[in-house]
């Protein structure tokens, strides 16, 4: 027994030593260290995590070089400080992420954390961020619950939550006078799919009160095979089929559904479908209505206006580096990093040019608004902690000349048209018929 105690002592000593060795790697004053967490493995790596960080890397490199982007983003790094990145894989579940978050803040001593695609992680991390008083940006995840169920001081989400995705879809249908007698859904069987379907049916109940819900299918996440589900959808013959699937699940569904002619029988609408266009190309059928969870990807490129230069600069750099055009994920990473840059520089303007503390950063970020390739981002909800942004829905159309899939009939929705106003929960807002919505 005594020897076991010694063993135990040995392990603890080793741990203490490792702690020491890994110890203070705190950033200097001329560097701003960010922890970036996104999926590098697993199913979300291909669709979100890797493109997001590819975009992030392009932007960070350009910023560190300085003067590559149009004003107001022409200053080097964050307020002149060099940006240093610690990258962590988001795969492995919320338990792991909470531990990694603590490690990033307490061991790596990062100045800010930017991350999280999975809504589970976005719910798990904020309480810890507040406990550690660590400035944290949620850059991608969709669940409205983060700030509707809780309030946090040091946590900000720079992307709109998922409500606007499905509200925009329903508005698009209505504004184009698409007749809908019945609709059905095929969504992944986890929170994202369940919430998206609830939002879509809620929005449809307001805009198409007579449309009948035929069937709601929830195949397992990562199922890959949709043969049976497609049979069910073919049998039910709904006017419209809604899906919030993403990544491999969406690609598999589209390939299998189009092979069996589902798109000829029902109108298919995809709330987050833009990111599979570069991969599917011609395999993506024409006439699909789809969104990009914001004015991202093709919709941003097609928008024009004063943000064109910023968009094109990043778009071209990304395309040159990776040989493919950027879809929604890099746009969300860009808006997060540009927001962080704006906040850091605002805080430095106020504190006399020192590297801002967590408190100063949080104060600067609160209620901030800034321009990103995806449009004007406004931290308008949850007491200045939750962003709203414009959205766009378009229709797929194959351009045979260019040999590329395009979006046509794009409709742009103002932030305040598809997002609830401050103080109203998304679900209530939809159920009450979008009170306070400001649409052109």
């Amino acid at each position, binding site marked *: 027994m005594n020897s076991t105690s010694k063993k135990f002592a040995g392990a603890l000593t080793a741990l203490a030593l490792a702690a020491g060795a890994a110890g203070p790697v705190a950033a200097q004053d001329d560097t701003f260290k960010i922890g970036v967490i996104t999926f590098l493995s697993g199913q979300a790596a291909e669709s979100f995590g890797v493109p997001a960080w590819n975009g992030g890397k392009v932007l960070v490199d350009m910023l560190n070089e300085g003067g590559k982007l149009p004003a107001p983003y022409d200053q080097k790094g964050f307020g002149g400080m060099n940006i240093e990145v610690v990258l962590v894989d988001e795969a492995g579940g919320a338990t792991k992420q909470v531990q990694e978050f603590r490690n990033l803040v307490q061991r790596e001593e990062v100045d800010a954390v930017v991350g999280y695609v999975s809504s589970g992680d976005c719910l798990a991390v904020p309480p810890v961020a507040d406990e550690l008083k660590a400035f944290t940006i949620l850059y991608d995840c969709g669940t409205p619950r983060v700030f509707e169920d809780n309030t946090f001081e040091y946590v900000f989400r720079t992307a709109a939550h998922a409500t606007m995705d499905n509200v925009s879809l329903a508005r698009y249908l209505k504004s184009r006078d698409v007749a809908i007698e019945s609709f059905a859904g095929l969504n992944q069987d986890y929170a994202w799919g369940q919430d998206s379907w609830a939002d879509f049916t809620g929005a449809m109940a307001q805009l198409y009160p007579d449309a009948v819900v035929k069937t709601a299918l929830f195949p397992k996440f990562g199922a890959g095979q949709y043969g049976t589900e497609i049979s069910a959808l073919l049998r039910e013959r709904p006017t419209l089929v809604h899906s919030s699937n993403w990544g491999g699940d969406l*690609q598999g569904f589209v390939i299998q559904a189009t092979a069996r002619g589902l798109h000829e029988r029902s109108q298919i609408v995809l709330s987050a479908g833009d990111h599979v266009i570069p991969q599917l190309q011609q395999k993506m059928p024409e006439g699909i209505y789809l969104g990009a969870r914001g004015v991202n990807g093709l919709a941003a490129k097609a928008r024009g206006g004063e943000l064109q230069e910023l968009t094109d600069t990043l778009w071209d750099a990304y395309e040159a580096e990776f040989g493919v055009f950027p879809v929604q994920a890099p746009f969300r990473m860009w808006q997060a990093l540009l927001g962080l840059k704006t906040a850091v520089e605002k805080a430095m303007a106020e504190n006399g040019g020192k590297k801002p503390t967590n408190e100063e950063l949080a104060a600067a970020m609160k209620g901030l608004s800034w321009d990103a390739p995806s449009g004007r981002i406004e931290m308008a909800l949850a007491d200045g902690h939750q962003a709203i942004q414009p959205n766009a829905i378009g229709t797929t159309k194959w351009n045979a000349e260019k040999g590329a899939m395009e979006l046509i009939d794009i409709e742009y929705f103002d932030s305040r048209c598809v997002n609830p106003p401050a103080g109203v929960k998304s679900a209530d807002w939809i159920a009450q018929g979008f009170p306070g919505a400001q649409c052109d």
Partner: protein
Amino acid sequence: MDLAATILVDGLIYAGWLFIVSVGLTLVFGVLNILNIAHGSLYAIGAYAAASMVGAYFAWGGDAFPYGSYVAMIVAALLVALVLGPLLERGLLRFFYGRDEVLNVLVTYAVFLILEDVMKLIWGVNPYFVYEPYTLLGDVEMGPLFYVGYDFAVIAAAIIVGLAVWLSLNRTRMGKVVLAVIHDSEMSQTMGVNVQRIYLGAFMAGAFLAALGGALTAPMISVTPGLGVNVIIVAFAVVIIGGLGSIPGAAIGALMVGISRAASVHMLPEAELFIIYFVMAIVLLFRPEGLFAKTQARKI
């Protein structure tokens, strides 16, 4: 087409796929007594290999004879078996024969983790597509529904695989020796059977079947990281239902799961997630070792 017929067709298509992905698992368990979690990785690698191989086939002028892509898929699965089979069995697993079953599950779990990242290193995270073989066989109209001809090809492939495995086990000398090893490896060792060669052969066959499952699935999906993890649990369930080590058991298990899942999707979509465990629980309640388990009489 009425509901029952739709359920049957959908169920058969899914069962065909389930059988192909689980028969290799049960074969490997029967012979090596190892429940191979890395079976899922071999499935995924098979899918990647097929995607690369079919892609290369069309890149090198395969358009003239697109049906050759099916050959490319099978060749891809064979390659996976030939490379990874000996590597894993000779290089690793053989050191764990006769050890605790659960320890062996962990060994293969470690292999699974390693292969997950190895796949990323080889193929990256971008998806691979090879949909040509999927649409090549045309549509099949059944009443108001369309099916893809390829779906039925999968059923046919499952039947061919099943027959091939059954025939080679029961109608060849080698197969009978394998059956003897499944029954009692110690006894066959004393009878002069080269058990090592049997183990290697069985593992390679298992790897081939896993990779073939992946290769056949590749055209219907986008081949992306994380593909293997979802296959393991369903294949486990099918194999447990049928009885570990039983080939007919895997067939019956696949049919039971396939058809009950199809019924659930059409009639009670909420229950789809649970149906596989439900079938498993019911079967094990009445037959604790699965439907066709090998009996383990012990001499005392």
